[in-house]
């Protein structure tokens, strides 16, 4: 990502592509399972593929497939999708200052392609200190890779869903969690960040009973609040090494 060479559009695009590779690997089983679940939940193969093409939101698609299987009404499914995807508003707000000078022909697709995975990869690139003018190409590389992979995996899953039963028993739903664990660990570079993550995680466990993943949104807000407070009481120049950050866990 950080190279001494002069940044180019193509270089940024492929750097974004490469940085997203591990996340794409983590999303593969998730996409296949969605395709498989979609067709077994009562959606047509066309609608299952269409949902990946036009909605492109992993967890919301899973929940929607589950609700379709449970014969839930359409307006409730759409409302649930809205609530589940509200966290993207938080991502969108985070990225807004970096993309403010981009024209609409960039903002529309980049907004459409905003996912948990691309967000984390891209925000890491944007916060690097170099002033490359092509960081949105990095975003594009990440987003195009995630999107293409999601479509292929959905197709594969639609086919697999009609042939292999009980894909979930293979523990493939853990692939995404393990990917997120890897991402989280590399993001925690200071004590306030660690404190915010611990606060959000514990809150999410306590609030797990709330409907429609609302607990996740509330937990995220509590985590941000904890991080901001921690930052205001700690000297800002303290940048924890992995060793010292690990020690805070017991506080």
């Amino acid at each position, binding site marked *: 990502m950080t190279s001494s060479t002069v940044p180019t559009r193509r270089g940024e695009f492929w750097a974004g592509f490469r940085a997203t*590779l591990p996340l794409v690997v*983590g999303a593969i089983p998730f996409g296949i399972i969605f395709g498989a679940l979609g067709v077994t939940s009562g959606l047509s193969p066309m609608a299952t593929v269409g949902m990946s093409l036009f909605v492109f939101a992993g967890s919301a698609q899973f929940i929607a497939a589950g609700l379709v299987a449970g014969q839930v009404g359409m307006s409730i499914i759409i409302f649930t999708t*809205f609530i589940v995807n509200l966290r993207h508003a938080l991502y969108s707000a985070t*990225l807004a200052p970096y*993309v403010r000078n981009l024209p609409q022909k960039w*903002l529309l697709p980049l907004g459409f392609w905003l996912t948990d995975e691309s967000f*984390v990869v891209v925000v890491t690139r944007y916060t690097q200190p170099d002033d490359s003018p092509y960081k949105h190409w990095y975003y594009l590389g990440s987003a195009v890779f995630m999107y293409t992979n999601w479509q292929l995996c959905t197709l594969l899953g639609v086919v697999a869903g009609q042939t292999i039963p009980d894909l979930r028993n293979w523990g493939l739903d853990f692939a995404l969690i393990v990917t997120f664990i890897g991402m989280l660990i590399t993001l925690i570079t200071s004590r306030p960040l660690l404190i915010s*993550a611990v606060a959000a*995680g514990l809150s999410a466990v306590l609030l*797990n009973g709330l409907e429609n993943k609302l607990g996740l949104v509330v937990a995220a807000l509590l985590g941000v609040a904890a991080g901001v407070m921690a930052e205001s009481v700690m000297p800002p120049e303290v940048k924890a090494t992995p060793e010292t950050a690990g020690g805070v866990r017991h506080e």
Partner: protein
Amino acid sequence: MNEFVLIAGMMLVTFIPRYGVMALLGRIEMPGRVFRALRFVPPVVLSAIILPAVLLNSEDGRLDLTLRNSFLIAGIIAGLVAWRSKNLLLTIVVGMAALWVWRWLLMSAGG
């Protein structure tokens, strides 16, 4: 159910928070405090997804801190690998392998 309307509706309510906030906030000068607070968003969201997934039983939603919780065991191993190696692909491979090995051990032990 009309699948076309369902997907169109889901598309709309997903696209609005993704694109709309980005497009609107880009026009306003954001205070430095807000900007600094937003840096916490990526880790808190990940943590809020991970912890319930590894600590709670997926069927009844209860806290499960036993050795029978294979997500917890594999999650801890994956976390250690990520921390020591900073290598995401390695973390995924070892984490998944740990899950399968642990489940196999549980099955062997449980009969």
